[in-house]
């Protein structure tokens, strides 16, 4: 159901066969798949229509490049188009003038940041995240509780402020526009250089509340007005964003809850109706989970490839590069021992709950169900190896039935588990042996170049989204 665009296109073009140039009918068939993929990702229909028209104009007549399959070529065109759109109009973000924080600073007096959006989108949490971030950069933010509507909304911000040791302005009762006005005056007096206004959630069709937030903006003259958008939103994102944009001087969008597996096509919809850039993304409930926005990552996510780059980066942080290389080297040389295997397990453990981050890939969560990525299993496997003698670890061939029983007892596991581990180890070695002898796709993966994929290469890959997409989209076994 939630196939990636790459898979969809691949099946179209395998039906069509080899091509030298993309004809109109080829492109039309591909466009149907593109349309479905984008709609499944929650991109608004009107945006999908415009996008497919643009893509068609670019693709028809395009020569098929020798070394690339036509589906990959079309996928690349789509990807490029999305990256372009998600990048927003150049010049809409003022150049960062404070150590890279993309905030429009006030020329004099405190910088006022207004957070607005629908109910439950993540405004209060984002206010706290932003305050924390700015504080860490040496600023002195003041948080303002301007949601006098939802039960315990003020308390929520107070608790967050206290945990971050950031002051919160709040009042027992009163109207939000006045409260915000007083807060800005207080910030000026107290020497806070940033004021972050947490407003109540409101529906774009609620005239009264839209008037209220407009009043807040009129009184506080915010330098930044950020629309907080839940990345799981569907088609309605265009309707609400449009009204918020018309009612407020929006300067940008914050996309929240991207730590799930939503494709997040609403981001594209909102960008295209408001023309305002995504400034930050929220990737968790904790106050440190605020990240800059990467159009290229978002594009691959919408197209169903997951945020592969983020995954690679996370994995890289956990894996010590040299260790990985050494282990790979040994695997290929055939000198991979149980000790090396133990080390591998430890690295996997360091990456944290495997399922958490694999779950970031759209469609992956259901696939993972049932076939447990079993963290306890890793612990037990480690215990098995740890119960082996140095000799046994070096030369597992000596592991006879008696030794295996001893290991099972010593590690508190079963004979069955010990046998499985040894079998797994042997299979791994066998596989590697075969790899060395055939130059197929796995052989290529084993290529030194791949193994030594270094950080700068990853960065380069990200810059040229192209390579990354082609790499990930190439199905196993294909050239």
């Amino acid at each position: 159901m939630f196939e990636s665009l790459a898979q969809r296109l691949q099946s179209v073009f395998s039906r069509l066969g080899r091509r030298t140039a993309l004809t109109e009918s080829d492109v039309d068939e591909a466009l149907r798949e593109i349309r479905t993929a984008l709609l499944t990702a929650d991109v608004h229909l009107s945006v999908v229509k415009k996008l497919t028209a643009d893509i068609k104009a670019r693709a028809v007549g395009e020569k098929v490049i020798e070394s690339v399959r036509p589906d990959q070529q079309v996928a690349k065109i789509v990807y490029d188009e999305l990256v372009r759109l998600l990048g927003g109009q150049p010049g809409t973000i003022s150049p960062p003038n404070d150590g890279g924080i993309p905030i429009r600073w006030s020329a004099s007096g405190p910088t006022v940041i207004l957070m607005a959006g629908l109910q439950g989108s993540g405004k209060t949490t984002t206010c706290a995240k932003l305050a924390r971030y700015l504080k860490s950069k040496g600023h002195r933010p003041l948080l303002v509780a301007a949601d006098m509507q939802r039960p315990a909304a003020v308390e929520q911000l107070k608790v967050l402020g206290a945990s971050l040791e950031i002051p919160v302005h709040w009042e027992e009762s009163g109207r939000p526009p006045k409260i915000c006005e007083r807060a800005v005056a207080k910030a000026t007096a107290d020497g806070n250089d940033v004021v972050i206004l947490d407003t109540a959630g409101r529906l774009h069709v609620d005239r009264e509340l839209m008037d209220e937030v407009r009043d807040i903006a009129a009184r506080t003259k915010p330098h930044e007005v950020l629309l907080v958008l839940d990345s799981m939103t569907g088609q309605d994102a265009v309707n609400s964003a449009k009204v918020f944009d018309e009612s407020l001087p929006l300067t940008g969008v914050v996309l929240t809850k991207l730590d799930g597996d939503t494709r997040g096509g609403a981001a594209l919809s909102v960008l295209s109706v408001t023309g305002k850039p995504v400034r930050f993304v929220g990737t968790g409930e904790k106050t440190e989970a605020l990240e800059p926005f990467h159009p290229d990552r978002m594009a691959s996510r919408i197209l169903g490839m997951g945020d592969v780059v983020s995954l690679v980066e996370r994995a890289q942080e956990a894996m010590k590069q040299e260790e990985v290389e050494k282990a790979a080297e040994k695997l290929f040389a055939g000198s991979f021992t149980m000790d090396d295997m133990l080390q591998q397990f430890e690295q996997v453990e360091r990456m944290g709950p495997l399922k958490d981050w694999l779950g970031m890939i759209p469609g992956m969560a259901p696939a993972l169900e049932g076939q447990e990525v079993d963290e306890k299993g890793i612990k037990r496997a480690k215990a098995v190896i740890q119960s082996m003698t140095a000799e046994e670890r070096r030369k597992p061939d000596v592991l006879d039935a008696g030794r295996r029983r001893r290991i099972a007892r010593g590690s508190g596991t079963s004979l069955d588990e010990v046998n499985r581990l040894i079998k797994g180890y042997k299979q791994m070695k066998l596989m590697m042996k075969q790899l060395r002898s055939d130059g197929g796709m796995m052989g290529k993966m084993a290529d030194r170049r791949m193994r030594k994929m270094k950080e700068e290469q990853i960065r380069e890959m990200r810059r040229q989204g192209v390579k990354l997409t082609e790499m990930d989209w190439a199905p196993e076994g294909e050239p």
Partner: protein
Amino acid sequence: MSFFQKLKQSLAKTTQVLAGRIKALVKGRKIDDALWEEVEEILLTSDVGPDATTELVASARLAAKNGEILSGDDLVPWLRSAVAARLRPDEADIRWNAGGTTVILIAGVNGSGKTTSIAKLCKFLRARNKTVIVAACDTFRAAAVDQLGIWAKRLDVGFVGGSNNADPAAVAFDAAESAASKGVDVLIVDTAGRLHTQKNLMDELSKITRVLGKRIPGAPHETLLVLDGTAGQNGLQQTRAFREHANVTGLIVSKLDGTAKGGVVLSIKDQLKLPVKFVGTGESADDFAPFYADAFSSALFGEDETR
């Protein structure tokens, strides 16, 4: 009051009126490709999703071919009943525990409207003379316990709250203990928002369900997933994962007082066989009604005559 009237009422103060959007569109028109395209647009922009939309339009086309739909005028009633048929039967009733306290567990992704829906359920149950206790098992989010506590006080229902960062399963157990020993009719358990992809949090939810069952046989008798009515196709994955970890028995669709239509429930019902039980149409405890397939279907097409 039906959900449709409710919706109209809560929309009264807004700029938006429920216009007969499709009706105006199709009136007196002949059946042609342009018309099909417009029907498709209505479905797609209501979050029905490309697959379910294709299916619906295909069956409508077939009906037209068979002479069941002769002009645009027949189209709305046809579609309305086709969509309603997909969502039936209406199952708004709660599965009561005949032998004691009925336990209702509420779950869902972050910010979907769980805590507010509990307030609404309380009001709904109080109006039916049920005694209620709510349990604040969201010990994670800032002031989540206070939020439910305020509602409990306002609505005059019992309250069991955990301290900050207390084990939610332990709070659930305490609440079950308290509800059972006091013999209250219903215990409603609020849980922290969690994304369905977070394995440890989903396991925590499973644990809460197990703990409840230890104290009260068969509990939770209902596990309701609160789905944000503005959600898109991800709603399907959410529901699937929650069903797997917490044996969801039905849905509450919140925030239908905006312009979102919640069309993803069509696929949810189709693929996961889960009924929508209630809908939320505002921020107050009154903005709540049982779900009726007919009313929902009418709202989808902006048709305002049924019920």
